[in-house]
């Protein structure tokens, strides 16, 4: 594999895993907590954000030499708002039910700090290909995070996944999971899980290092 391919792959994986927007950076929590009532909603929100993120980063990266630094934030916001409007129309055209379910949170993608953060910190300094790959990785990471929350909440809150019943009709839904506090509970559980896993891995690495030093 060539050098370029590995960097691109790492660029992509940065957002998916090492700098995951939901679980590592804990950014953009407003849609994360609000729309993850079901797996479908969570995935659509993730995809919509990915679309906006990728398109804005591409445009910002293409125009990066042209944008005067004094007005760069205004420019980024205009670009992001453009693609949010496009997504808004697209979702309305695809399904009104989905549009109603996501509600105001589609328009609120414009203030999602992940997108502005990526445009400012990455896309404005890198060539289009790298910027797009990085943005895609971030978007995929965000979608994974939302899906992790949405699936748990849908399973406990409705006994379903993607609308398919998992436990039969006598399942007792945990109403709290569909309500906003459920979002906090599930996010907290995931963060706990990742923290515990990280600590366990660190300890194991430390132990492995100790062994090699002794040998």
């Amino acid at each position: 594999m060539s050098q370029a391919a590995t960097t691109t792959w790492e660029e992509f994986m940065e957002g998916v895993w090492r700098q995951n927007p939901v679980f590592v950076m804990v950014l953009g929590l407003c849609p994360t907590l609000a729309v993850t009532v079901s797996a479908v909603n969570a995935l659509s929100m993730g995809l919509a954000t990915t679309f906006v993120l990728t398109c804005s980063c591409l445009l910002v990266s293409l125009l990066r030499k042209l944008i005067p630094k004094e007005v760069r934030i205004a420019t980024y916001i205009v670009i992001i708002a453009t693609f949010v409007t496009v997504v808004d129309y697209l979702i309305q055209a695809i399904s009104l039910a989905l549009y109603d379910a996501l509600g105001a949170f589609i328009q609120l993608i414009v203030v999602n700090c992940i997108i502005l953060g990526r445009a400012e910190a990455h896309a404005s300094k890198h060539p289009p290909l790298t910027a797009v790959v990085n943005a895609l990785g971030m978007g995929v990471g965000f979608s994974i995070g939302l899906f992790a929350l949405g699936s748990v909440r849908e399973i406990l809150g409705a006994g379903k996944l993607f609308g398919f019943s998992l436990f039969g009709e006598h399942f007792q839904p945990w109403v709290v999971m569909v309500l906003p506090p459920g979002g906090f509970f599930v996010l907290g559980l995931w963060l706990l899980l990742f923290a515990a896993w990280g600590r366990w891995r660190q300890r194991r690495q430390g132990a492995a290092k100790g062994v090699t030093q002794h040998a």
Partner: protein
Amino acid sequence: MNHATQTLPEMTPPAAMIRTLGLIAAICGTIIVAAYQGTYRAVQENKRIALERAVFKVVPGAQAIAEYWALPNGEIAKVGAGETAPADAIKFYAGYDTAGRLAGIAAEGAAKGYADTVRILFAWDPATRKIAGFSVVAARETPGIGDKVTKDRDFLANFPLEAEPAADGRALAHEIRTVKHGSKAHAWEIDAIAGATITSRAVGRAINDTAQKLLPRIAMHLDTLKEKP
């Protein structure tokens, strides 16, 4: 002025800034207009289907709909495309069956529920002068309790519900009221669900508030509405 530019050597000239911002605005504008044009027909089609589906659900036998305004002076007017609502007008939908005859009238009502406003769409049958049924448009009631209003068999047995416009044409002959579970005494009363009284009351009030104003106006124009326009 001159002095200031010397101390800030990296300042971009205003003309360049305006040029760039103008260019970006032009690009963004083009993208938005293209997206709007591209999705317009699909969005309108979706909205129409959603509205029809909602009305067909509450008006049994309806196959086509027409939208009307009920004006405060007692007249009714057909809704034109993209028209804004006249003052104090209430929108309603006339549902027509396959033969083009009036199958029922549907209208929206709203009232404060347990968590938020409960918006419902209810149907009035002009032949029997009764409210045939309702469906929930938007509500944030507690799942498992408040949302029972659309599932609870005893509650749905309240419909058809008497809604006879009064002889003077200003209100209903009897106010539609939600009463405590098990104490329904008249045909125009709604028997609440035990344990979901607040949502039951919201449904009753939503129907009553709209029906009081709307149904007397419609009752006078049933001849105009009878056939599909």
